[in-house]
């Protein structure tokens, strides 16, 4: 991905069949993508609980890109637009859905993500919920966007520890990739 690249590719495939593609990550495109994913997975008779987990993780991942991606644009109405890649594949044999996301971040954001990974990587579902509750308590009345535990809510929906990689690109910019299986 080039520094000045403005192309965004979001795709959803079921058994390699691409059923949705959008070009920009905006709140509008997140809503459309998430609803499309939900509808499509339900049409493939995937159990409701798994579909909801995918739906919620998709929104959380895409909103994270929208809010924190390097080079994102924000207008006077606080409407954002960001670059990134997001794909979703369904493995019918394993009944697994894989969500993959890539976007640019800064090295300080990388440190923050690594710190959060270390905090939660060995936690089971119950412990993750406790972690989220403690975050909620600690941020009482801060009154600002961003919760500080969006990452944990994504991880809580995964079958196992997600694959996360950081690839230095230029200056303080890093390519951040996340892959998780639900």
């Amino acid at each position: 991905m080039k520094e000045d690249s403005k192309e965004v590719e979001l795709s959803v495939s079921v058994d390699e069949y691409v059923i949705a593609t959008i070009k920009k990550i905006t709140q509008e495109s997140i809503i459309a993508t998430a609803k499309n994913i939900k509808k499509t997975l339900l049409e493939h008779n995937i159990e409701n609980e798994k579909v909801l987990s995918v739906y919620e993780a998709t929104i959380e991942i895409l909103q994270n890109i929208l809010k924190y991606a390097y080079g994102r644009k924000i207008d006077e109405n606080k409407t954002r637009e960001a670059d990134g890649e997001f794909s979703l594949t369904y493995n019918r044999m394993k009944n697994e859905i894989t969500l993959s996301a890539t976007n640019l971040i800064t090295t300080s954001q990388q440190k923050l993500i690594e710190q959060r990974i270390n905090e939660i990587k060995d936690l089971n579902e119950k412990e993750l919920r406790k972690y989220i509750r403690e975050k909620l308590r600690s941020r009482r009345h801060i009154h600002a966007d961003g919760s500080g535990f969006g990452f944990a809510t994504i991880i809580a929906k995964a079958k196992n520890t997600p694959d996360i990689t950081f690839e230095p690109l230029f200056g303080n910019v890093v390519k951040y990739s996340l892959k998780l299986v639900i």
Partner: protein
Amino acid sequence: MMENILLEKTDDTPKVVLDYDKGVIEFEGECYPENTYEFFEPIIKWIEEYFQTSGDKETTVNYKLTYFNSSTAQAIFDIFDIFDEHNHPNLHINWYITKGDRNAIKDFEEFKEEFEDLDIQLVEI
């Protein structure tokens, strides 16, 4: 007298009813707005003012959120904090979930445990 507020449901924000006359506070739908704080700021302000002026008035909270993102979870937590600070015997909270939704039950149980003095009833529909 405070003005009532009615916000209609959108794709990413819930229907919100803040009715001073009837003593009803209601959230219904999904909630994952782009700017969470801006959406909730006037709601939180209204609720704070409501409890400062309504005394022990009969108050019903209908919580019918089917999905909320992590930023919204913080706002909801703050709203429950206000309920807790102003708790009285005539404050009743109905927490609606879809029957059999295990994650929603876990959310309910956690809020119930966190705000143990509040009268929070689970309503499965």
